[in-house]
């Protein structure tokens, strides 16, 4: 709870529009200069150990390159949508940020401090107060034998926050209230089985809020929920951002959810960021063929118009195994626009204007046609 007072929760409601990005209106709350989290060349390689001898000798037969060198920065008050299919490394990235998984390379900078090697210390505890994780499945996250108040209060106890029982209770009720469980006193004594799926996820959110975090890593927070409950929770997340200046790393496989919630979207494929930029630009003018394909197949309740179905890019096959990442551009075996260079050299992220970057050789000179709008 140290930095919360001096950091202004809400910046003035003025529109901070960078001249180059016309269609994007920066919502109130983002502090463009205040970088809250930065990942530099982050790598997570899991060793593959075959048999017992490999285990003993700590020798690896190879590595699963779950996260393979990504750079990412999130400003205070921003929502960054990290989108990818299963096996893209998006969840691993989130787990590294909350320090549940060790990185094997790269740096993590949080609020100006290098937290890369923050392990097993009191500092880690302080870090975790400011960075909280919300999991996907509200049914598995909650202990069925604990009341709601016990679940929400546990982190307070573990971290020794709050001076007395009453103080803790106050904090618990306030968190439940903020998460939209009103009247909070009614919910505090209940057990998870007495709640609906949407209410459970609100409890999980309350459990994250009670610590007063600055950054919330939300891993598919609404994927298990019904449409109408989903929108309620998305609105709650936006409200919390406005009221508390929360920053989100929003991890999802669903491009349309990132579209409605995130300010910027990063698209991951096999451990690399393929494209990153303001949501409007990434969705309306995707420059990487992978993003273009994802956007074109992204489901929509509008019935497809004549010929629209044919215009869709349905990629063949599935994401390769992260233990056998193709050489050159890792997307090249499935890319509809592949050419010689892609098979040999891996493209870096090229700036394509408007704060958008794409990892594609075609973006180098800007030859890619704007994708489906």
């Amino acid at each position: 709870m140290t930095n919360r007072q001096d950091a202004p929760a809400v910046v003035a409601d003025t529109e901070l529009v960078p001249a180059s990005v016309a269609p994007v209106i920066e919502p109130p709350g983002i502090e463009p200069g205040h970088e809250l989290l930065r990942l530099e060349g982050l790598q997570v390689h899991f060793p593959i150990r075959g048999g017992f001898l490999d285990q003993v000798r700590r020798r690896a037969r190879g590595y699963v390159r779950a996260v393979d060198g990504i750079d990412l920065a999130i400003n205070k008050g921003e929502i960054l949508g990290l989108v990818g299919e299963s096996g893209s490394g998006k969840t691993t990235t989130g787990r590294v940020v909350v320090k549940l998984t060790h990185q094997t390379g790269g740096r993590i900078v949080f609020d100006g401090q290098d937290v890369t090697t923050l392990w097993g210390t009191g500092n880690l505890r302080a870090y975790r107060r400011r960075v909280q994780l919300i999991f996907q499945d509200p049914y598995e996250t909650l202990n069925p034998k604990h009341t709601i108040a016990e679940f929400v209060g546990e982190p307070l106890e573990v971290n020794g926050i709050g001076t007395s029982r009453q103080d803790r209770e106050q904090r618990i009720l306030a968190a439940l209230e903020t998460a939209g469980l009103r009247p909070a006193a009614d919910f505090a004594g209940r057990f998870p089985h007495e709640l609906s799926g949407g209410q459970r996820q609100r409890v999980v959110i309350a459990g994250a809020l009670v610590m007063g975090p600055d950054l919330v890593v939300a891993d598919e927070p609404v994927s298990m929920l019904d449409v109408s409950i989903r929108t309620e929770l998305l609105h709650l997340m936006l409200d919390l951002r406005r009221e508390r200046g929360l920053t989100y790393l929003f991890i999802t496989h669903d491009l349309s959810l990132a579209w409605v919630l995130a300010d910027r979207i990063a698209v991951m494929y096999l451990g690399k960021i393929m494209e990153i930029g303001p949501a409007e630009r990434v969705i309306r003018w995707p420059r990487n063929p992978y993003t273009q394909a994802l956007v074109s197949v992204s489901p929509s309740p509008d019935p497809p118009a004549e010929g629209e179905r044919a215009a869709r890019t349905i990629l063949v096959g599935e994401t390769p195994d992260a233990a056998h990442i193709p050489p050159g551009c890792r997307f090249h075996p499935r890319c509809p626009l592949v050419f010689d260079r892609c098979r040999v050299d891996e493209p870096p992220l090229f700036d394509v204007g408007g704060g958008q970057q794409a990892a594609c050789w075609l973006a180098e000179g800007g030859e890619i046609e704007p994708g489906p709008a």
Partner: protein
Amino acid sequence: MTEDTTQRGRRQWPLPKLADPKAPLLRVEDLAVRFRMPNGSVKAVDGVSFGLDDGEALGIAGESGCGKTTTALSLVHLLPANGYIKRGRVELFGIDLVPKTETQIARYRWREISIVFQGAMNALNPVQRIGDQIAEPIEVRLGQPRESSRRRAGELLELVGIPKQRAGAYPHELSGGMRQRAIIAMSLACDPAIVIGDEPTTALDVMVQAQILQLLEQLRRDLGLSLILITHDLSVIAETCDRAMIMYAGRVAEEGPSRRLFTAPRHPYTQKLLSSFPNIRTDRRTLEVIPGMPPDLRKPPPGCRFAPRCPFAMPVCTEVVPPEVRFSDGVRVACHLYSDAEAPMAGAAGLKAAGETGA
């Protein structure tokens, strides 16, 4: 596939003995399903009617607990032990399936109606090769010799886009999308008249989902399959189905050609549901919230069940069950807004404009 005029649609084998060759493929009338619970009986499905023609795809959508899965399961008596059909008719080729006994109905499962269950791809037997698992219903249900069942299983795998050399693979050797394809192959094993898919793409990645939907589309075109797709994902229905049926709290809110239903929804619930669906083809952050929660089906509200959450609720809505109104474009709606035929489109036009944006 060529159409045999002497047979029904794609059907190349005789109809059940009692079948009426002129009857529609499937006709469900006033179906009501109850679940016995310790503290009362849950009216999970209450007066649902719909039909399915040869080669047609019907999508049933709604939130959890609206009765969409229960409706499908009751067609072939697969309800859990505490569930029973209270009233109604389920006519397949004019044969009423409701009074059938367990042994009688078993003849209709797989052979006439097969169901791809939610998460079925995770329910494959892990220690049996997929080819054998697909051959099993052919052997058991149709009494075919093992050799020809195996050959047929290979053909089915090819049909759903798995090379038949992979018939010897175990489920863990296949990816999620491949397992789902194998399950679809299995549902086609006995060449059923109707395939019901209960959330067939829910656990899959977007790209794999697109592949599976493309496969279903192709199977429909090539085999003339009749499909019922049950999903909470409206976009899946918009993509694949000719007709859509929106259910709410055990009743049909609106049913009709999916293009009409998704472009000009009439029932306030359909309108709300569509405008709360994230859509990358529209403007951002225009998502609507449906206030409140679905009713407790042990004691559902009298009158319209959506009334407590409906922005257009009138006094009559809380008292009288809305009758179904049919429109000339083939849509039927159960809503009091339209019971006065003079001003049928007033409410719909207003809300449609709010949910619609120029993408």
